[in-house]
């Protein structure tokens, strides 16, 4: 210890250079550093109060990438960032999650379906990539295998996804299935009689055509995926922190475009993470911020100054993601569809699937714009089931008529969760913001973020590390489409 004190006195240049390389910045404040080191040394000696601040509950002071939001999308981005980095431990990643119990996070409250029946080729490719990832989740050592840990059991039900279409939608369904088959999904089209033969419990009145996925479609348990990812990502060295992002410290630079217009580019330097139930916060210096905050992404974007400007300009374009409440109901029906029942999406927008072996069914419906419930809390409205969901269910599956006639409702339980709803075109936003150059989005997927999470995580990681999309071309999902007004509409949103 004395030798170190001597070295402090004798080697100013070496010490500042040493300190500089460790902290990552060159500092000329020699006196303050000596005082700090002397204070630390004195506090180690017995008898002195420990003045060293215990910061183990705070996030680190520096991190290369800060991911705001620890749900399935945030963890997926963290996983792919660590997987695609060139050298081991090259990138320091911090995941900031405001609630480690995930009580309101959309991931845990999700129905967990995965299907390839979309109309946009990019969405189909994302689904195919994700299902390959889920299939190989334990098998490839590259995925979530951790030595000494039990394998991740996703409880995947390969029962398929059945879309029913009425007369007027039949032609568009055929076109969609053609696109899906081109991308490699195995979907078959069925007429009403074939549908009746295959699933005798369906009432095919009003159904002209149905599309059914033969393979790689069904539902799984989102919690096991979340925890498997979390475990793997922790084993790869990603740090977790429970806290709320309250502020971004940014710097602006004025630039000129080639057509002589002035543009202000912003760069985020620090993220202020506030701890729960206290006023304490930690400024985390970072290079890249990833907005994967799900239903709260709009608020995070506003903190970064996105949308502060005259409407109609790029500065004034807000991130159009807001939370929307959706209900899921669980009911029991002993004479209901058998073990082969797929995830059925009716012509009216009502969907249901089987849950477990005991004749329980899960389902719900997306309300229309006028009936949107208030997203301030996660209270369930049981009348919605009786008025909006049950009539269509009973009409489509006559066995569910029994739910109407009983004294006590057979709805065992229900819950509500948020969609990170993109009010512009109900499809996600991926990639950097054109003006806030180091904020990347991975949000806004309006109900199919869970099933696309592996693909989206990989796309964002490729964008951050390599500057472009390589596996799947997600350029139609960039933020700029909100300003340019190009809607990316997919007609199969549940």
């Amino acid at each position, binding site marked *: 210890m004395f030798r170190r004190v001597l070295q402090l006195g004798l080697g100013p240049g070496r010490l500042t250079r040493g300190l500089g390389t460790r902290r990552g910045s060159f500092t000329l404040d020699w006196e303050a550093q000596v005082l700090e080191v002397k204070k630390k040394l004195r506090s180690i000696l017995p008898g002195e109060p420990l003045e060293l601040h215990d910061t183990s509950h705070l996030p680190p002071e520096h991190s290369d990438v800060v991911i705001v939001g620890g749900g399935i999308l945030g963890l997926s981005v963290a996983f792919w960032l660590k997987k695609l980095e060139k050298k081991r431990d090259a990138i320091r990643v911090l995941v900031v999650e405001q609630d480690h119990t995930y009580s309101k996070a959309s991931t845990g409250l999700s129905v967990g379906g995965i299907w390839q029946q979309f109309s946009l080729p990019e969405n189909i490719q994302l689904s195919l990539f994700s299902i390959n990832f889920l*299939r190989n989740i*334990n*098998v*490839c*050592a590259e995925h979530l*295998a951790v*030595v*000494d*840990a*039990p*394998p991740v059991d996703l*409880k*995947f*039900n*390969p*029962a*398929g996804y059945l879309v029913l279409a009425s007369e007027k939608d039949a032609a568009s369904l055929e076109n969609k299935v053609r696109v899906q088959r081109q991308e490699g999904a195995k979907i078959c089209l069925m007429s009403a009689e074939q549908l009746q033969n295959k699933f005798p419990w369906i009432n095919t009145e009003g159904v002209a055509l149905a599309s059914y996925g*033969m*393979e*790689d479609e*069904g539902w799984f348990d989102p919690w096991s995926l979340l925890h498997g990812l979390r475990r793997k990502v922790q084993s790869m060295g990603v740090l977790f922190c429970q806290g709320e992002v309250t502020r971004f410290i940014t710097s602006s630079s004025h630039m000129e475009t080639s057509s002589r217009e002035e543009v202000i580019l912003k760069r985020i330097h620090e993220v202020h993470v506030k701890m729960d139930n206290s006023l304490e916060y930690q400024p985390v210096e970072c290079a890249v911020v990833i907005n994967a905050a799900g239903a709260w992404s709009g608020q995070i974007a506003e903190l970064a100054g996105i949308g502060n400007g005259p409407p109609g300009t790029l500065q004034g374009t807000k991130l159009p993601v807001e939370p929307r409440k959706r209900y899921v109901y669980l009911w029991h029906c*002993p*004479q209901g569809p*058998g*073990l*082969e029942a797929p995830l059925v999406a009716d012509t009216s927008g009502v969907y249901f699937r089987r849950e477990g*072996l*005991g*004749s329980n069914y899960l389902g719900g419906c997306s309300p229309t714009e006028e009936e949107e419930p208030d997203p301030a809390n996660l209270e369930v409205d049981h009348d919605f089931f009786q008025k909006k969901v049950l009539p269509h269910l009973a009409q489509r599956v006559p066995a569910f008529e029994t739910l109407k006639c009983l004294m006590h409702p057979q709805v065992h339980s229900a819950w509500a969760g948020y969609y990170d709803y993109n009010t512009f075109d109900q499809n996600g936003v991926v990639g950097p913001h054109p003006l806030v150059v180091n904020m990347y989005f991975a949000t806004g997927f309006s109900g199919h973020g869970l099933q696309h999470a592996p693909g989206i995580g990989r796309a964002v990681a490729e964008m951050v590390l390599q500057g472009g999309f390589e596996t799947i071309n997600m350029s139609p999902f960039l933020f700029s489409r909100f300003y340019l007004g190009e809607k990316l509409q997919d007609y199969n949103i549940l």
Partner: protein
Amino acid sequence: MAAPGAFLRRVAREWTRHARGIHDMRESVTPDSSQKRRTLLQFLSSYFHDIEVLREYLLRMEIHKMHWKNRPVSSIQEKYGPSIAGALFVLKQGGSVKFRDKEWIRPDGRGRFSSEFLEFQGVPVEAVDASGCAINYQGLDHLLPLKELRSLRLRRCPNVDDWCLGRLHPLAGSLQELSLAGCPRISERGLACLHHLQNLRRLDISDLPAVSHPGLTQILVEEMLPHCEVLGADWAQGLTLRREEQPRDTGSPVSA
């Protein structure tokens, strides 16, 4: 200590001898003879990063070996056709094959088999017995082109799981007998996608450890496949017996 190479090989051989599937590498229940060595490595790996890397390497090698066994053999396929390619794949894994109107071709104790089937051009494969083989989702690629397959036995295959069952639907036209007894990774969710196989007449789903309620699953599968004889758990399995009454007399407590 012996040379590191020899040590590694010895460890790897011990590992693979006692691990039937890759997930057994991670389970704590092991035969006694390798108990000490397994816990020693586990113990060491919590102190030394090198041992941790070694264990990760061994795990990766196991997985790689499984992938290598299931690799596609497209050159054989082009030369001889899909039936013979499928038959060759099954025989190399250690299973048996029966062509129509011919005898069963089985590899002997050493894994060698006669190559007379290479002349069976145009003769379809009727039955495949891949019991105990390391066939997985990738390896099923070789079996799916066998459009006239009547009987498929996948008993005690450690890598056949729910995903593989979801892939069997192209064989729906001809498959009449399917046996999945003893596969450790098949659960009731995979059994649900057997409803595509409408021509199935015999299905064996006994002794599936990952199925949570064997009796109830048996009833649901029987309902799903009305023309099929389902062998498996007795429906009364798992139900508590009342004193002095036979299970058959109490009637079905499970609804419908």
